[in-house]
């Protein structure tokens, strides 16, 4: 009976080979575009405050020389980044406003889709001159990771509280105009071997992981020593 269904066993091999071909084929079809999308897109739109030579960071006081250069790699959804912002954010803002440091914000999005949406919206807010305020507000309203709270609609509403009411901003968030930049800045962070967030460099040297991330005093010392 079973014999009659499979006269020579060749059919079994056919089924097996077909299954293997389909699985491997489908996975390859998914893999190839993913690998290609991991290349930096140099034609992507970027806000004017983004500096390509500084790894696509959002740079403040770019023209200053002889001051400490603070580079921050962070993800808007990362709780440790929110902690760092609440501890040292105001001091960094002050350094920017008083022109005492050059500061680059690198928005990584390794926690997923909502990090990308938030990073895109932050770039849109930069066009309205409100990046620092928006950055702070996002951390102050950080929901649970990928809970669905950070929708494009939420991100436009949030900006209203900062006095951003330009339809350009809304369009930029809605159409994800800076998604190319979001990917590029993440790609540069990967190339720089940033393996956790937040990661902060002062003049190219990472600050002490055991001290300077969790204490304003230690962070201020690190900046002053630079």
């Amino acid at each position, binding site marked *: 009976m079973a014999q009659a269904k499979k006269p020579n*066993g060749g059919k*079994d091999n056919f089924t*097996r080979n077909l299954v293997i071909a389909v699985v491997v084929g489908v996975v390859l079809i*998914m*893999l190839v575009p993913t690998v290609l999308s991991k290349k930096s897109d140099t034609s992507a739109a970027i806000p004017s405050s983004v500096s390509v030579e500084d790894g696509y960071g959002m740079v403040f006081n770019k023209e200053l020389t002889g001051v400490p250069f603070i580079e921050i790699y962070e993800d808007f959804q990362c709780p440790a980044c929110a902690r760092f912002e609440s501890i040292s954010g105001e001091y960094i803002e002050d350094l920017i406003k008083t022109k005492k440091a050059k500061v680059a914000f690198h928005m990584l999005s390794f926690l997923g889709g909502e990090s990308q949406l938030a990073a895109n919206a932050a770039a849109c807010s930069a066009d309205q001159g409100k990046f620092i305020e928006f950055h702070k507000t996002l951390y102050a309203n950080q929901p649970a990771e990928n809970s669905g709270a950070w929708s494009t609609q939420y991100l436009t509403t949030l900006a209203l509280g900062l006095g951003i009411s330009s339809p350009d901003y809304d369009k930029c968030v809605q159409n994800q105009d800076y998604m190319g930049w979001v990917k590029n800045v*993440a790609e540069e962070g*990967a190339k720089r071997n940033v*393996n*956790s967030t937040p990661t902060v460099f002062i003049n190219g040297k990472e600050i002490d*992981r055991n001290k300077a991330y969790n204490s304003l005093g230690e962070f201020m010392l690190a900046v002053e020593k630079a």
Partner: protein
Amino acid sequence: MSKFIKVQPWLGLIARLTLGGVLFAAGYLKIGTLDKSQMAVRAYELLPISIANFLGVVLPFFEIAIGLLLILGAGTRISAALGGFTMVIFIIAIAQAWARGLNIDCGCFGGGGSVAPGQTRYLQEILRDAGLAALALFLIRYPLTKFAVDKDPNRSNAGDVE
């Protein structure tokens, strides 16, 4: 011995579904956050950064493919050999991170990257991967299992789902 012959295809099925299921889940959990997967591979500080970043993208897809083939029981011996090989590589990578005193999460099921000192779980991770490698060895030795796409060439109705 004859008892083993009866039980072996069922043990093989369990081994296949366990190893395949773990690999599939591991790949599936990483595929939505490939930046993190890249970060996890870099954190081992074993490979040049560009190669680590490439591997971080490819590995989840590879795990899904091998996992699916094992779950279906298609090309069991080769799939188990590849799965076992990756487990051995993972064990080596985790062991060297441990020996060098790095503080990282293995990133086996998503996650990964640096963690606070004292938050590492190297021993558990190595034991788990060693157990999975043992399942792979069993499947390489006895690739014919219940409910598999693979068929016994000597018995045309072996493993048939009836």
